C-alpha cells in the first residue's frame, strides 16, 4: 500500500502537526495526581481533570518540570501559597505540549501561577468554613470555658516530634513549679493520614474527658508547608464539637488552618501552647498572690486603723479629763469670786444704805425744824400784824364815832336852829305866852302837855302853866 507510514513516520507527523497546532505555550488548569522528583532534580507529574460532582477522571496527562525550572518554581509556589507543591493541588500551569516519538505525549511545565492555587484553596476553605458555620458548630469549642487552672492536659502529637519534646520540657520545667498532668495521645501529624489520625486520637480522649481540662494539638519540627491536612473538614468538625477546649500549636507562622480556626485557642507553636498554659496558672497564681497581699494589707490596715482609734482615744482621754477638771476648777474659782464680790457688794450696799439713812435723818430733821421755825415766825408776824390791825381799826372806829357824833350834833343843832327859827316864826303865831296872855293855859302832867283827857285820871296831880305863874292842882272829876 502506498502511503503506508511507519510508526516512526506517523509519530514524526503527529509530532510535527502538534508542533504546528500548539506552537505556543498554553495556560491550563489541572489537578496534580501524582508527583515525584528524581535524583537529578527533575519533577515528574501526573495531571488529571475531574468531573466536579462525580469526581470521575475526565482527562489525564503526564507532565515534567525540568530541574532547572523546578528549582525556581517549587519554592516560589510554596512560599506564595503556604502549600507544598504536591498531589491533590489544583494548579494553573503554563505548558508546552511535547510529543516524543518514543515516550509519546506529555506536557512540559514552564510555570505555575500560585495565585490560582491560592484562590482554589481559599475557595475550598471558604466552603468548609461556610459549612461549619451553617452547621452552627464553628464556634462551639470557643464557647467552652477554659478551666481557671488548666493543668490536666491531653496531648495529641507525634511522640517523636521535636515540638512535643519542647512542649513537655517547657511545661514541666516551668519556673514557678506549677504541677501539670499530661497524657500523650500519639497521632500522625503530617501527610494524608494526619487528619484521620488526629480524629482517632480525639476519639480516644473523648472517653477520658473528665480527666482533662484541655486538649492540645501540637506539631513541630515538620515541614512548614505540609498543613493541608488541618484544613480537613472532618477534623475541623471533630475539633469544633469536642467537649474540652482544644488548643492548637501546629507550627504555622502565616495563616490559620481551619483546625486553628475552630479550636478554642490557636497558638503558633507547641512552646507557645506551653507558655499559654503556664500563663494561665500564672494568672491564677498572681490572683492568689494579689489576694494574699490584699488580705495582708487589708487586715493590717484594719488593725492599724483600730490601733489608731484606740491610741487616739488614749491620747484624747488625758487632755479631755485634764480639761474637764481645769474647767471645773475655773468654775469653782469663778463661783468663789462671785461669792466674795456678791457678799462684799451686799455689805457695801448696806453700808451705803445706812449712810444714806443717816444723811437723810440729819437733813430731814433739820429741814423739819426749819419748817417749824418758819411756821413760828409766820405765826409771830401774823400775831403782831393782826393785833396792830385790830387796834388801828378800833381807832378808826372811835374816830368814826367821833366824826359821826360831831356831825350828828351839828345836824341836830342845825335842825334845832332851823326849828328854832321856824318856831320863832310860829311863835309869833302860836306863842303860848301870847295865847296864855289871852287866858289860855297849858296843863302839864309830869312835865308833858295834856292834849286829851284820856291822858289823865281823877286824883292825878297836874300843873297848869299860866301866862304868868303856875298852878298845881289835883283832878277831882273828869267830865
Amino acid at each position, binding site marked *: 500500500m502506498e502511503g503506508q507510514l511507519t510508526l516512526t513516520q506517523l509519530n514524526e507527523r503527529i509530532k510535527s502537526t502538534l508542533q504546528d497546532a500548539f506552537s505556543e505555550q498554553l495556560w491550563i488548569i489541572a489537578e496534580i495526581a501524582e508527583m515525584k522528583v528524581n535524583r537529578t532534580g527533575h519533577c515528574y507529574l501526573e495531571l488529571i481533570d475531574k468531573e466536579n460532582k462525580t469526581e470521575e477522571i475526565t482527562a489525564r496527562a503526564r507532565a515534567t518540570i525540568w530541574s532547572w525550572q523546578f528549582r525556581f518554581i517549587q519554592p516560589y509556589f510554596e512560599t506564595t501559597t503556604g502549600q507544598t507543591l504536591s498531589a491533590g493541588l489544583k494548579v494553573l500551569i503554563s505548558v508546552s505540549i511535547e510529543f516524543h516519538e518514543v515516550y509519546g505525549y506529555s506536557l512540559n511545565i514552564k510555570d505555575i501561577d500560585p495565585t490560582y492555587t491560592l484562590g482554589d484553596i481559599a475557595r475550598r476553605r471558604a466552603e468548609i468554613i461556610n459549612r461549619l458555620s451553617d452547621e452552627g458548630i464553628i464556634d462551639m469549642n470557643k464557647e467552652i470555658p477554659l478551666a481557671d487552672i488548666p493543668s490536666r492536659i491531653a496531648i495529641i502529637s507525634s511522640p517523636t516530634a521535636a515540638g512535643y519534646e519542647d512542649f513537655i520540657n517547657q511545661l514541666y520545667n516551668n519556673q514557678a513549679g506549677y504541677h501539670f498532668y499530661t497524657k500523650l495521645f500519639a497521632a500522625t501529624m503530617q501527610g494524608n493520614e494526619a487528619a484521620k489520625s488526629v480524629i482517632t486520637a480525639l476519639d480516644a480522649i473523648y472517653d477520658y474527658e473528665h480527666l482533662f481540662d484541655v486538649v492540645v494539638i501540637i506539631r513541630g519540627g515538620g515541614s512548614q508547608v505540609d498543613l493541608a491536612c488541618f484544613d480537613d473538614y472532618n477534623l475541623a468538625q471533630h475539633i469544633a464539637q469536642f467537649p474540652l477546649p482544644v488548643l492548637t500549636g501546629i507550627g504555622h507562622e502565616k495563616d490559620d488552618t481551619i483546625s486553628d480556626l475552630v479550636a478554642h485557642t490557636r497558638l503558633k507553636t507547641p512552646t507557645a501552647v506551653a507558655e499559654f498554659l503556664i500563663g494561665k496558672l500564672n494568672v491564677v497564681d498572681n490572683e492568689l498572690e494579689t489576694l494574699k497581699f490584699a488580705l495582708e494589707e487589708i487586715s493590717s490596715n484594719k488593725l492599724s486603723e483600730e490601733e489608731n482609734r484606740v491610741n487616739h482615744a488614749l491620747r484624747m482621754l488625758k487632755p479631755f479629763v485634764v480639761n474637764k477638771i481645769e474647767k471645773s476648777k475655773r468654775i469653782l474659782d469663778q463661783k468663789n469670786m462671785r461669792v466674795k464680790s456678791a457678799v462684799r457688794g451686799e455689805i457695801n450696799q448696806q453700808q451705803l444704805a445706812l449712810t444714806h439713812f443717816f444723811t437723810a435723818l440729819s437733813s430731814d430733821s433739820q429741814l423739819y425744824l426749819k419748817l417749824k421755825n418758819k411756821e413760828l415766825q409766820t405765826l409771830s408776824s401774823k400775831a403782831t400784824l393782826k393785833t396792830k390791825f385790830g387796834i388801828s381799826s378800833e381807832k378808826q372806829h*372811835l374816830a368814826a*364815832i367821833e366824826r359821826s*357824833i360831831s356831825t350828828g350834833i351839828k345836824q*341836830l343843832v342845825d335842825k334845832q336852829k332851823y326849828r328854832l327859827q321856824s318856831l320863832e316864826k310860829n311863835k309869833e303865831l302860836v306863842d303860848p305866852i301870847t295865847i296864855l296872855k289871852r287866858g289860855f293855859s297849858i296843863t302839864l302832867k309830869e312835865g308833858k302837855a295834856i292834849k286829851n283827857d284820856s291822858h289823865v285820871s281823877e286824883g292825878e296831880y297836874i300843873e297848869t302853866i299860866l301866862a304868868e305863874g303856875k298852878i298845881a292842882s289835883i283832878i277831882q272829876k273828869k267830865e
Partner: protein
Amino acid sequence: MAQKKQTYREAINEIEEILDKIENDELDVDELVEKVKKVTELLRFCKDKLYATQDEVEKALKDIDN
C-alpha cells in the same frame, strides 16, 4: 365809880345808842345837852382805854421779837 367798871365794849354800845337816838330825832332838846355830855365822856373813856391798850400791846409784841 360804876363808870370805871364799864367796859370799852359797853361804852361803845352806849355811844352808838345815843347816836342813834340823836339821829332819829328821838331826843328832846332837853335831853340833848345831857346826852352829848354823856357821849363825850364815853368817848374820852374809850380813847383812853384804847391808847392804854395800844401801849401795852406794843410792849407785849416787842417781847415776841426778842
